[in-house]
């Protein structure tokens, strides 16, 4: 954007002049026919000057003018990339070239650094430049990963190789800095994505996740990551979070199930998906009843109502049936209750939409994930966990979230891999394959992820669970819950793998996981106090509760005398003692002294027998029911597994815990009815439809029976119920308050 008069430029004209002169002094394409890039005489100093401009003008004064000028001068694509290309693979001994390459990187890293929309610290300048610079970064990424002249990412790694080769004890500060710089460069490239609210007008495929993974694979970056991850703790210490970030930006929102499919399966899955979507569309179109006449046919209908009232309805579809008439009456209303606007979500922005990988990137990522699980998983994640525990200085707040997200992601990937292996093994077994190999694979399988199944990890996880809930950091809590869920599922698979030592270990782990009553409380509280968080959180919370209940139920059945550690219950005791006035405890409900002693002993004992039914009762209050109903409201978009989750919960409430009254509320009935018989029902061809139909039928039957039994339910159906009134409506007598033991 050259201003002919230079009058009303958005950046200071002097800054622009300085930057432009620096960029032109850097060098240029030679006019010879080979068109090689010629470095200027003082190229190194020029690069350092540019770096200084960025540091002392942009960062010191919190502006973005220099970055904007550099973008307009086309520095990266026009100069830096060709300069990096002049440093050939075999010329590693050239000191000067290596220095130049390093200087280039030092300029590129701040330019590609992730930008934060932090409304509290943004100035006018930020608002002016950031939209442009965001698109500029996308252009940088496109140029860097698609550069034909050289493998830029690979070159970047080569800059750091001499420093990496030095043993960790002998590395200087500068060496550490160079390694970090290169890792940050990779992290920036991996994390840049087109901003969500802008339509990217370039070629999407050049900057998509598939292109990124392809570039990483082709330029041997995956090998570097594997090397770093598997040596974490030996040759590398402070680079753990940076490596983790790179991996996070590569695998976030990737569908694991699809990743482990063979190409044939993938083709089939995609075809099925298309067929399913088309079918859904057809169903949708079918559900709209189109009038059989033109739109000015002018049908008009009177609906007779009580008290001699009439309601007038227009349109032919009103003739069809009562339900349609009611819907028309309702839809004609224009009043909307006031609602609060939704807040913009920074993390959603970071996560981006689900990643769609082409088959090539899919295979590349799959092989990386398998190698990583085999070699890098335990060292990297154990090390990051230690870093989190000691709260290292270089640890950012978001690292914790990414850590839990990645642990969950890789645990699920490991499970998927095991399953796909098993399938292929089963196929091979038919072809007369030996069974020992399978056994061996299973041996290694759980060991590969043992780094996150130890006691220290559970302590960290528990702490994070309680803290993020307390500080209302919903995003971290989402990641923690997903992680917890995946650990539970993994351990449960260990229980059933059919190998004795694994089963013993799994048994041990489960007993430790379920031993703390504080965890039980946390899970129950999280689900009960859901309010307005995003769908991802809701999904994670319901998933955790579903698996927690399921696994705990089977575990407590196997271990009849399961014990949990609870807090001492002395407060009530103290109160009673005070009321009695003095040191002798209240003796009104206990017979003699010995019994009293026993009761006392039991009260202060920290272990209590676990009663699953009582525990499950903590998931029947209105808050929990509401959470699951909110989840079910998305039924049109839920997967089969998610529908099953909601189904099992409702079944548990209505028939296992005998609290179906909690579901007798008009809006819940409305939702359930519409899921089966409404204008937009569940997909009738889906496997879950039959189960839902049966469940809804049973619940409705119970409801009508209850209304006959107790007419007062007609009123109570409008409201949330307290547990006591619900109990009365359910059983017809007051709840016996259990005398506390």
């Amino acid at each position, binding site marked *: 954007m050259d201003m002919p008069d230079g009058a009303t430029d958005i950046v200071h004209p002097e800054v622009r002049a300085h930057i432009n002169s620096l960029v032109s002094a850097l060098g240029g394409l030679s006019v010879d026919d080979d068109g090689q890039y010629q470095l200027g005489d003082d190229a190194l100093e020029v690069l350092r000057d540019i770096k200084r401009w960025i540091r002392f003008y942009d960062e010191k004064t919190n502006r973005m003018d220099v970055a904007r000028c550099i973008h307009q001068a086309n520095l990266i694509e026009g100069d830096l990339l060709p300069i990096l290309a002049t440093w050939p693979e075999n010329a590693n001994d050239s000191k000067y070239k290596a220095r130049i390459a390093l200087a280039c990187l030092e300029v590129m890293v701040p330019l590609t650094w992730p930008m934060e929309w932090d409304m509290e610290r943004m100035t006018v300048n930020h608002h002016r430049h950031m939209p442009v610079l965001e698109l500029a970064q996308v252009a940088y990424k496109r140029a860097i990963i698609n550069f034909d002249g050289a493998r830029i990412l690979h070159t970047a790694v080569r800059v750091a190789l001499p420093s990496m080769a030095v043993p960790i004890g002998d590395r200087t500060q500068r060496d550490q800095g160079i390694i970090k710089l290169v890792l940050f460069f990779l992290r920036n490239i991996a994390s840049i994505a087109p901003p969500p609210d802008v339509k990217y007008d370039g070629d999407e495929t050049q900057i998509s996740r598939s292109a990124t993974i392809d570039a990483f694979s082709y330029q041997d970056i995956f090998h570097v990551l594997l090397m770093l991850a598997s040596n974490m703790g030996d040759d590398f210490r402070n680079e753990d979070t940076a490596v983790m970030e790179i991996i996070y930006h590569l695998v976030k929102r990737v569908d694991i199930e699809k990743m482990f499919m063979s190409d044939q399966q993938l083709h089939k899955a995609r075809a099925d998906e298309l067929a399913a979507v088309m079918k859904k569309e057809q169903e949708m179109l079918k559900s709209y009843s189109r009038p059989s006449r033109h739109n000015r046919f002018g049908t008009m209908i009177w609906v007779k*109502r*009580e*008290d001699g*009232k009439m309601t007038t309805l227009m349109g032919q579809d009103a003739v069809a049936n*009562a*339900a349609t008439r*009611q819907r028309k*009456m*309702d*839809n004609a*209303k224009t*009043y*909307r*209750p006031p609602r609060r606007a939704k807040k913009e979500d920074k993390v959603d922005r970071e996560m981006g939409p689900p990643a769609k990988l082409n088959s090539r990137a899919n295979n590349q990522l799959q092989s990386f994930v398998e190698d990583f699980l085999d070699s890098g998983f335990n060292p990297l994640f154990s090390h990051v966990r230690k870093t989190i525990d000691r709260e290292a200085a270089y640890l950012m707040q978001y690292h914790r979230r990414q850590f839990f997200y990645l642990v969950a992601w890789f645990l699920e990937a490991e499970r998927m891999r095991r399953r796909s292996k098993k399938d292929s093994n089963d196929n091979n077994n038919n072809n007369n394959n030996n069974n020992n190999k399978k056994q061996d694979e299973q041996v290694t399988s759980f060991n590969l992820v043992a780094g996150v199944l130890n006691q220290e990890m559970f302590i960290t996880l528990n702490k994070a669970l309680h803290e993020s809930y307390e500080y209302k950091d919903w995003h971290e809590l989402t990641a923690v819950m997903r992680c917890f869920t995946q650990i539970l599922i993994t351990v449960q698979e260990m229980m059933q793998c059919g190998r004795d030592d694994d089963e013993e270990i799994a048994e041990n782990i489960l007993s430790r996981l379920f031993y703390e009553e504080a965890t039980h409380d946390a899970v129950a509280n999280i689900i009960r106090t859901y309010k307005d968080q995003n769908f991802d959180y809701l999904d994670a919370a319901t998933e955790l509760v579903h698996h927690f209940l399921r696994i705990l139920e089977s575990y407590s059945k196997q271990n009849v005398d399961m014990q949990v550690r609870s807090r001492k219950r002395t407060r009530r005791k103290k109160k009673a003692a005070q009321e009695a006035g003095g040191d002798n405890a209240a003796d009104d409900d206990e017979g003699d002294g010995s019994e009293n002693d026993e009761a006392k002993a039991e009260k202060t004992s920290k272990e209590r027998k676990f009663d699953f039914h009582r525990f499950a009762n903590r998931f029947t209050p209105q808050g929990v029911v509401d959470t699951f109903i909110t989840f079910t409201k998305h039924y049109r978009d839920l997967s089969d597994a998610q529908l099953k989750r909601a189904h099992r919960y409702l079944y548990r409430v209505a028939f296992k815990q005998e609290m179906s009254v909690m579901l007798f*509320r*008009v*809006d819940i*009935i*409305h939702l*359930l*009815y519409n899921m*089966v*018989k409404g204008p937009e029902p569940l997909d009738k061809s889906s496997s879950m439809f039959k189960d839902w139909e049966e469940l*809804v*039928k049973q619940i*409705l*039957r119970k*409801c*009508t*029976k209850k*209304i*006959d039994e*107790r*007419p*007062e339910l*007609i*009123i*109570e*159906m*409008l*409201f*949330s119920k307290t547990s006591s*009134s619900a109990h*009365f*409506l359910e059983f*017809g*007598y007051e709840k016996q308050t259990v005398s506390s033991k």
Partner: protein
Amino acid sequence: PTTQSALGIDEEVSVQKRARAPNVKLDEERLLGPAGIPKLRARAATGLRLKGRGHEFGDAQRLLSFYQLWLDDLFPKARFLDALAMVEKAGHKRRMAAARMEWINEGRPGRAGDEEERD
């Protein structure tokens, strides 16, 4: 009248804003009023016929339309689901909770003579 007064520039014109009519709310007042819960009970006693076993979905439809018509009479401007949410919210109020307790207690068996019935 002179031409000046005919123009109407001698008299003062009041430019005070008139107070807006208050928004109609679906609150506990309205719910406890004659068109609210009492009417619902009266209608339930006369106009709600559920068939029971074998007619679950028809019954649900009847039940839903019963509530919808009642809410349409009580608070015509809001949609069914929005109105339901408002009613539910009003149910947390103290007055409302007390009234609800009353209605439940009416359904309870009396203090005398119910021990024989229930074995």
